[in-house]
């Protein structure tokens, strides 16, 4: 493991110095997988899981595929990341199914948790710093560490493509660094192939639900600490419904790279010398990462509540139970037609299913006289300021949105088309496409949209809507069918919160900023701006308060060159906006 340190002499340092530093890094990073610790974890976790969840559902044919894959080539597990539970559950499941236990790339912040950090280490976690951009030695040690484990077939490597837990339950734009590291042994011929196994983990109710909402609203994430975890014991007494783990088909790196990567580009350097990925490789990695996240999304098991949450968010004033039932049923069929992986209980009346879901999520709802509404249930006794009231409501809305977000990937493409049709100047296909493409481009920080797939996405959207009888796609025109109105209206209101949110951000940048807005000030300033609009009754969309949306909007504006970032002083200057 330490062999690489020799190769990375930084100028000025003696070899011993570097070697020592490298071994310190390794000490900090390395896992110490011990079966006894794992057994202890399994014992406690099975208790905890039994209390938390009604059931944990696993696709067993996926487990069988994984068993096969592990025997063929080294395996990399790529679970989605929505909760701390994710990797605990992964290791637990693999243990229970008698599969090799993975070693897991975990964020450094866990390590600072007393005792727990060490426990995690002994159950297979290795720790990486959140940022080490400039530290070449760190990067070298880290990548060699991961590659050595992979090459030796020591254990499956597990890491999160999204890099961190998604606070919104939307998949995050994937990171490519670790993906490159696990693919490199294949690129360099050290392995015949590597199997990537995307794993989709979904929760009927997420443990960190309100925690995430608060964090998005600006209440900072508490530092990981053991006492925090102890306080979290409270969560043990609540019902979190079911949990779903879907092991996807293994994706062979070899077949993924076919025709895209010239492996001979690695012929001219000794293989122990780290090489920055070439532009081609980088593009490939990015593309592959997006595709893997898409697979995660597609395999995500969705519960009926996700549909209900979508409808409740579109009707802030609430709905009658009967019309909720009717619309949920309609939406269920739409979602199924669009390929959603919906776990709808068979042989149960729609109303039954709905009341079950409402019961599980009662803390977000008020139900009275057959009328359901999203509302604050555990409102503080003390009179609060109007600002506080807005925030309380926003927590509910954002919590609810995190469920709707789980199904966004199903509706996204048709929804973009629906909005494009509304805003395009004509019905001409190329006008609609241009509009679609613009929106797609705009939202590519917000949603998982594979770069370069614009035409494909457009065609997919057209196809789906045509199949539903919503649209007719003629040679040069796209025409709405008579019966298509309600579907299009629904679809465009799916994107509505995002459109509104981006408008708020752009209005803020246009109207409020002086020339020297620093990046740090941006989020609180936009939040205040949105808050004022809401208090003044000029904005109904609470999701505009989400820091995630605000960051994504800024990133999109930067990318579209509507806003310029001045590096030296870390200021953001705006130049004029497209929206």
């Amino acid at each position, binding site marked *: 493991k330490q062999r690489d340190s020799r190769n990375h002499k930084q100028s000025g340092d003696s070899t011993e110095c570097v070697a020592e530093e490298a071994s310190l890094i390794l000490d900090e990073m390395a896992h110490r997988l011990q079966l006894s610790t794992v057994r202890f974890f399994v014992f406690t976790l099975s208790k905890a899981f039994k209390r938390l969840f009604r059931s944990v559902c696993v696709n067993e044919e996926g487990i069988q595929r994984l068993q096969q894959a592990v025997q063929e080539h080294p395996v990399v597990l790529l679970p989605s990341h929505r909760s701390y539970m994710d990797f605990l559950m992964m290791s637990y499941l693999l243990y229970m199914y008698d599969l090799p236990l993975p070693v897991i790339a975990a964020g450094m912040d866990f390590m600072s948790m007393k005792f727990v950090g060490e426990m995690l280490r002994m159950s297979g976690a290795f720790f990486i710093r959140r940022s080490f951009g400039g530290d070449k030695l760190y990067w070298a040690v880290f990548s060699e560490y991961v590659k050595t484990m992979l090459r030796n077939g020591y254990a499956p490597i597990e890491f999160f493509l999204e890099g961190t837990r998604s606070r919104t339950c939307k998949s995050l734009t994937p990171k490519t660094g670790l993906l490159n590291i696990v693919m490199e042994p294949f690129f360099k*011929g050290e392995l*015949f192939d590597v199997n990537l196994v995307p794993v989709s983990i979904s929760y009927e109710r997420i443990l960190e639900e309100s925690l995430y909402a608060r964090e998005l609203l600006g209440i900072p994430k508490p530092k990981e600490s053991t006492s925090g975890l102890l306080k979290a014991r409270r969560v043990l007494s609540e019902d979190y419904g079911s949990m779903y783990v879907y092991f996807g088909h293994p994706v062979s790196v070899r077949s993924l790279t076919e025709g895209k990567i*010239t*492996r*001979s580009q*690695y*012929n001219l350097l*000794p*293989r122990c010398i780290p090489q920055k990925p070439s532009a081609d490789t980088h593009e490939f990695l990015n593309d592959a990462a997006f595709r893997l996240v898409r697979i995660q999304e597609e395999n995500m098991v969705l519960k009926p509540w996700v549909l209900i949450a979508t409808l409740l968010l579109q009707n802030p004033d609430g709905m009658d139970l009967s019309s909720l039932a009717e619309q949920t049923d309609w939406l269920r069929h739409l979602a199924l037609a669009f390929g959603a992986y919906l776990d709808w209980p068979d042989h149960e009346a729609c109303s039954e299913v709905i009341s079950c879901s409402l019961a599980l999520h009662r803390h977000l709802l008020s139900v009275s006289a057959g009328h359901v509404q999203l509302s604050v249930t555990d409102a503080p006794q003390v009179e609060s300021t109007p600002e506080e009231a807005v925030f309380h409501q926003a927590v509910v809305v954002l919590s609810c949105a995190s469920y709707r977000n789980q199904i966004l990937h199903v509706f996204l493409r048709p929804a973009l088309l629906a909005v494009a049709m509304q805003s395009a100047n004509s019905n001409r296909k190329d006008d609609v496409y241009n509009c679609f493409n613009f929106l797609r481009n705009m939202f590519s920080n917000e949603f998982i949209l594979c770069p370069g797939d614009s035409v494909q996405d457009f065609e997919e959207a057209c196809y789906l809507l045509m199949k539903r009888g919503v649209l007719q796609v003629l040679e040069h025109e796209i025409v709405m069918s008579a019966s298509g109105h309600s579907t299009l209206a629904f679809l465009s209101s799916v994107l509505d919160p995002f459109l509104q949110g981006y408008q708020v951000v752009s209005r803020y940048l246009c109207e409020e900023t002086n020339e020297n807005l620093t990046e740090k000030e941006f989020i609180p300033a936009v939040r205040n701006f949105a808050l004022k609009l809401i208090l003044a009754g000029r904005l109904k969309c609470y999701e505009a308060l989400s820091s995630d949306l605000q960051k994504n909007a800024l990133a999109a504006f930067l990318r579209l060159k509507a806003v310029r970032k001045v590096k030296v002083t870390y200021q953001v200057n705006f130049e004029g906006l497209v929206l």
Partner: protein
Amino acid sequence: MEENGSLFLSSSSSSAQQRLRIIAGHLQKRPEDENASVAAQECKAEAPRSEPSSATPVPRRRQEIMKWNGWGYSDSRFLFNKKGQAEFTGKRYRLSGLILPSLKDWFEGTFGANLQHRSPATPSLNLSAVAPPNLNQPFVEDLKAAGLTVSHDPEDRVFRAHGHCLHEVFALREGRIGRVPDTVVWPSCHSDVEKIVELACEHNVCLIPYGGGTSVSSALECPREESRSIVSLDTSQMSRILWIDEKNLTAHVEAGIIGQDLERQLNERGFCTGHEPDSMEFSSLGGWVATRASGMKKNIYGNIEDLVVHIKMVTPRGVIEKSCLGPRMSTGPDIHHFILGSEGTLGVVTEVTLKIRPIPEYQKYGSVVFPNFQQGVACLREVARQRCAPASIRLMDNEQFQFGEFCFFLILLSFFCFDPQHLCVATLLFEGDRGKVLQHEKQVYDIAAKFGGLAAGEDNGQRGYMLTFVIAYLRDLGMDYYVIGESFETSVPWDRVLDLCRNVKERIVRECKERGVQFPPLSTSRVTQTYDAGACVYFYFAFNYRGLSDPVHVYEQVEHAAREEILANGGSLSHHHGVGKLRKEWMKESVSGVGLGMLKSVKEYVDPQNIFGNRNLL
């Protein structure tokens, strides 16, 4: 006049002495220090050499002693006799006349082949399948006027239309004949070649030089797009050693001589070149030069580029040669390197001055068994690091070991500590004076011991080398029973040897599966040469093609994929087989656009009319 066990002549000095007496008269005709120009003049005088001399063992009508649709001599072949036992016919080899009882089990077990399922070859050449020659009459007449031997016989022409690629031999066995040369001409000396090339330029015909015909790169295939008359220039009659210079240890030899004759004749004078490619029974000196050949004993004697001191080549522009025999020159890029590996695209190599060495006093074979291939490669690497490689050191992987095992009782399973599914064997050949050989041997075995290697005896080593020469015959046997296969090679840096072997073998297995091959293929590798910075790796690949409609196409696709895998894993396009037409598509990738352009511009200058139009390499 062939001799039994001619492959290992150097080890049997008594028969060499006998030979010496027989040939003595012939050699005495030539004065010791005769120079090249004298030889050339003498050529005319001696032109119609009709005497049946052992110095010209390759007859013009090669088909009289060699198979027209398979490897090697007509009298030597593997077959399964009525009892279902394998035997090797003829008298030429050590294996000849022997019964190999366990070959059947290995053959059936490895390939899923069955002796009931035969795929026999067309028994004889169907002359009507050969297109009539497209003759350039004035050219032919001028050739005849110049006193050259010319033939339009279909058998002669078909014999020179192919090398030994699988697809070439497979087509012949099925009786399919493609484009063949229209004329065959046999020059008997350098000036004959000059005359032929001059006439070819004058009459604009296409010349394809033909040496031993052992190409495995489609180099001898007549280009389909060639509309001119194609003339095969067979160098086999230019096979004399013109002089031997004992002071400088060089010999000046006509380029048509084949390996075993060159070595035997030099042996009779107490010398050797030490150049022993696996094809040395049939391949010619000119062919070695034109493909950058490599011999198994290169560790002592060097590869062909290390052996040549002087080359004479006839090109359409005239004769290219250096003006002296200095051992090294700084006169710009070495012009020899335009000739070495030119694959018949620039001209005909007619005479070569080669380094020679006294026959080594002592030769000793050896073998080492390793617990696994990794350990074996590590040992070879260490041997290379210490620069103490024996004349030859080769490492076979487990699959090949299992093949070797069937043939001869390697009493190795007594090494019960080794897993027979993993162990592999290295064969060794030491040469030199006795004391040094023994010392050297100890050094190598000591290194091997560090990698878990156990010495496994001289006999096993010697058998290992013998197998090399009969393996090509084995392919013909396979083809009688629905099994096709071939070998291909590469060179690769040391650190990638294991990865490359594993990946290519696995790629072959996978590609076969994907292309509908019904039986698991034989996919094996061996390390056959060591260098300071890397090794030469050989792959043997064969499969049972029952159930496939176009087996050769499947074979070619798999070999193509395997080559891509080799290149992707840092291997070279070829270590010594050359590029020919088979691997042309990767030339640009291999040597860069500029590199290819350089070669093209040389071709453009030397042969603007594309007289040497075999379309190899570029």
